[in-house]
């Protein structure tokens, strides 16, 4: 029997009672397993092997792989195509959809197409502004925003219809997610924003990078006060810092990333900054796991993807569990 793989290859995948999808991510989260997801850096190439090589790095350490949709408003291979390749090999992807580049027609078409190819998880994002990316001349679309995208996805799945009301002959069985930024102030506004996303259909959350634990704890207690912890699975975003300089660059240039001075000082005080960055990440993962309401971590190790395995292993969050991957022999 296949364990924890998305059952995309099966003609009629089984959706457990109370689940929205047949995906392994939802199954793990609902069984209260601490999950690990990671972000795949999509290639600037037309080679499938470039995708597989980037996915294999995570084998045995992550439960799902996020296929980004032009993150940072930079052009790369599309998330739909990356997902198609990943599901073909048996991986469990999280298809990211940004509202920046596509209108509601294109987005709904992608949701159907993605689901048809075995995508079980969709992360609904507003998207970064085009002005910040490599094609600032581009026309920003933003026909929908993350909220209306969530509502649209839920309508397609639960009501079997397009946003227009036109019927679908088969609904996309997808687990819907959204992003959040636990470091952004004021907490009340951003916690309220999360409540709105849950109301719009978000079932899981993958957050922006978190380097400030006190802030994260405060944010999580805000979420708890709003009574939201039972309604959503929250995966906290983490990532190893490459150097003190890179950390400085990230906090000044990446929108919404907050890195406290103490972390920067710890980085600049180290002789081997690369190793220190990974150590900090391991420490963060271990601390984050203990915070009430945290369902997992989302590792974004941009250009350091090879470090993910080491970080996950050293943090011990998998507790001996080996996430399913295509090279694993099917167990009987």
């Amino acid at each position, binding site marked *: 029997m296949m364990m924890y793989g998305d059952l995309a290859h099966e003609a009629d995948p089984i959706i457990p009672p109370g689940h929205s999808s047949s995906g392994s991510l939802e199954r793990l989260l609902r069984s209260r397993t601490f999950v690990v997801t990671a972000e795949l850096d999509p290639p600037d190439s037309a080679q499938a092997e470039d995708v597989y090589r980037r996915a294999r790095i995570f084998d045995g350490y992550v439960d799902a792989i996020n296929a980004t949709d032009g993150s940072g408003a930079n052009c790369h291979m599309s998330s739909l195509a990356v997902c198609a390749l990943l599901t073909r090999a048996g991986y469990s992807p999280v298809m990211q959809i940004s*509202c*920046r580049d596509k209108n*509601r027609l294109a987005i709904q078409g992608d949701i159907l197409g993605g689901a048809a190819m075995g995508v079980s998880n969709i992360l609904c994002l*507003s*998207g*970064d*502004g085009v*002005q*910040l990316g490599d094609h600032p001349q581009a026309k*920003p679309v*933003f*026909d*929908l*925003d*993350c*909220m*209306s995208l969530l*509502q649209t996805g839920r309508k397609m799945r639960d009501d079997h219809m397009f*946003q227009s009301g036109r019927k679908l002959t088969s609904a996309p069985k997808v687990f819907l997610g959204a*992003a*959040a*930024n636990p470091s*952004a*102030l*004021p907490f009340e*506004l*951003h916690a*309220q*924003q999360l*409540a*709105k996303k849950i*109301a*719009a259909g978000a079932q899981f959350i993958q957050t*922006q990078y978190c380097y400030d634990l006190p802030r994260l704890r405060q944010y999580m207690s805000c979420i708890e006060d709003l009574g939201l912890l039972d309604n959503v699975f929250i995966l906290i975003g983490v990532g190893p810092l490459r150097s003190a300089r890179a950390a400085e660059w990230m906090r000044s240039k990446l*929108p*919404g990333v*907050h890195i406290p001075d103490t972390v920067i000082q710890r980085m600049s005080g180290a002789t081997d900054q690369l190793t220190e960055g990974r150590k900090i990440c391991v420490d963060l993962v271990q601390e984050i796991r203990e915070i009430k309401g945290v369902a997992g971590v989302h590792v974004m190790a941009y250009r350091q993807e090879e470090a993910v395995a080491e970080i996950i292993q050293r943090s011990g969050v998998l507790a001996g569990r080996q996430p399913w991957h295509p090279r694993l022999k099917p167990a009987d």
Partner: protein
Amino acid sequence: MYSVRRWSVRHARGIEIFYKGFEKVLVTLHPLWNAIGYERLEKPMAAVEKVVKGILFDCQMCGQCSLSSSGMSCPMNCPKTLRNGPCGGVRANGHCEVKPEMRCVWIEAYEGSQRMVEGKQAFKIVQLPVDSRLKGKSSWLQMARRSHP
């Protein structure tokens, strides 16, 4: 104008009260609008609305005004035209990730909504995406028309 737009958010409470009265007048005058003809009124009314709301809110004439649920801060001034709250890119100083010199439209909206009576609750409701067909049309006339289906 940016400074006037921010003034409007600071006076969201007063504007909300005024708007409620104004809405009543618009709705009450439905027979008049009907007699003249909504179609015929569309252009002149939209022109007036554009000037007035343009001054007060930097209105972009999306045709489906959501000022009452966005703290009197027009969401169409957000570079991503988000209709449902701030994105995750807000800077630590509350400014926009895309236009660093501008305060985040939705941080402003939150502050404005906290000053309002009904706007506080309305802020929490998920807004529908924009209907592109209504762009440039008068939302005031629609308000009057909708009240008499």
